[in-house]
């Protein structure tokens, strides 16, 4: 394992309990100057090392846009207000160059569809080592050793062989594991996971959930988990924020969200679950 202090930079040491990424009154609008459609309307969140922050909501609630904003990956006609701070660094208004340095190195992301986040024509090894070589300035040999280590960590079988295979030669679950390995390559402090298991079968999903939980614990990663699936939320999120129409309607520790939901919308979401009390009511 590569030592944290030498590679991850020094300005944001991850101290347990202290938020490493803070979103404050974030607003995002998309559109031309006189026709801006407001998508995120002032949300606040914080990500703490070792904890998984869930962001729940239906399609169109603004949860994906929020996570993209943390990486500066919004379309060019987006208007962003408020603040996103990584340690002491303000990310809103940062130049593309500066963001590029932070993206992948300090904040990494995994997506719903692992086959579209991996380059189909490059070997897995190339994709893993390129990334490492560029950001960590390792030699080819060191990078290869690091890549094998990463694949072992995400439990891809036969990591040695896996390096010289192409993404399509892996199953969907393995591809998502490889995408996670790439995300972890530069020892990020924050991992954004946007619907990481939605495209996967439920038996495969279970394995990925275990992996994400373990990684958050042992690497003190601060994880933002964006998902509409309350089952997934319940399994691994520590804190949950429920979004609707660009606003966080309720934010609380997991247990509280499920046992004593305060907001009507949270209650509505919970009652729509199969087998939930009041489910029959909701369907009438």
């Amino acid at each position, binding site marked *: 394992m590569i030592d944290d202090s030498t590679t991850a930079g020094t300005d944001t040491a991850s101290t347990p309990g202290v938020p490493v990424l803070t979103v404050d009154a974030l607003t995002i609008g998309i*559109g031309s100057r006189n026709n801006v*459609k407001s998508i995120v309307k002032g949300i606040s969140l914080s990500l703490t090392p070792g904890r998984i922050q869930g962001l729940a909501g239906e399609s169109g609630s603004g949860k994906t846009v929020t996570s993209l904003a943390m990486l500066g990956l919004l379309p060019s006609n987006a208007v962003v207000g408020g603040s996103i701070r990584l340690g002491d660094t303000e990310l809103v208004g940062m130049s593309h160059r500066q963001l590029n340095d932070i993206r992948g190195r300090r904040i990494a992301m995994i997506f719903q569809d692992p086959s579209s986040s991996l380059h189909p024509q490059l070997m897995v090894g190339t994709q893993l080592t390129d990334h490492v070589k560029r950001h960590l300035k390792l030699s080819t040999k060191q990078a290869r050793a690091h890549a094998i280590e990463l694949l072992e960590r995400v439990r891809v079988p036969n990591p040695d062989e896996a390096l010289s295979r192409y993404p399509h030669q892996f199953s969907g679950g393995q591809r998502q594991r490889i995408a996670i390995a790439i995300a972890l390559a530069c020892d990020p402090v924050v991992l954004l996971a946007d619907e990481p298991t939605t495209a996967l079968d439920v038996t495969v999903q279970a394995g990925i959930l275990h992996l994400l939980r373990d990684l958050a614990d042992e690497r003190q990663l601060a994880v933002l988990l964006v998902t509409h699936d309350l089952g997934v939320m319940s399994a691994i999120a520590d804190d949950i924020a429920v979004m609707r129409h660009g606003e966080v309607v309720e934010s609380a520790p997991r247990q509280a969200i499920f046992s004593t939901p305060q907001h009507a919308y949270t209650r509505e979401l919970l009652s729509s679950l199969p087998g939930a009390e009041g489910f029959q009511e909701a369907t009438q």
Partner: protein
Amino acid sequence: MRKRWLKIPAAWVTPLGVIGAVIAVVWVGIAFTARLWVPFDPLGQDLPRLQAPGIDTLMGTDALGRDIFSRLMTGASVTIPLALMLVLMSLVVGTLIGAIAGYFGKWVDELLMRLTDLVMAFPTVILAMVVAAALGPSLFNAVIAAFVVSWPQYARMTRSIVLGLRTQNYVMAGRLMGFSPFKTLRVDVAPNVVGPILVLASLDVGTAILLLSGLSFLGLGAQPPTPEWGSMISAAIQNFDSWWIGLFPGLAILTVVMAFNFVGDSLRDIFDPTSQVSRAGARS
């Protein structure tokens, strides 16, 4: 259903579409009536030669003392109807072949598409030369040469649309409800083919005019003394300082081609129902 066609769609209101439609209609009007009202006989050589534009001869006269204005207007009735006919012929033949290939698939598709590839391999101008050499240079032979190479684009487009539609769920749903093949074609397939084909055709009118004028310019189309725009420009080369001889036919070609292209572009917007939504600024 019918109302939708009577209502003027929002896309028509785009200034370029309106300008294009007006110019195109004016030119088509000229094409069909010019012979009735032109001031001079377009073939008569009884005016002073190379006379600059003035009060009696609006656009001057050419080297043989013919009135350019009269020749230009009559020229419209040579080129435009032939171009329209060419497009219509290509459209009917191409769409039919494409629809058959797409709908029946298998060896029918294979056979027709290889034929299409074969024809598309011919460069238009060289083919026109071959036809001219075989049948003698004439405007009608130029149309035949142009037709031979222009139907395949309709066939290809129709085939790809029909191929895509064949497996669409709503086509399947219709068949499950007992639609006859004719009804499937009329209700589920044709409306989705008409739009793109009309767009292609209206853009193609401009291309056809350019092609026919170009062939005439090279001496492979209209023969003297027929007042054709391409051959008029070609005649202007011998009297280079009499700028009016070439300028006005050139402008005529320019305006017609642009007009049809503008019409084609706004048709594209009309026939794509989703593009009207995006005009209203809604993001989906």
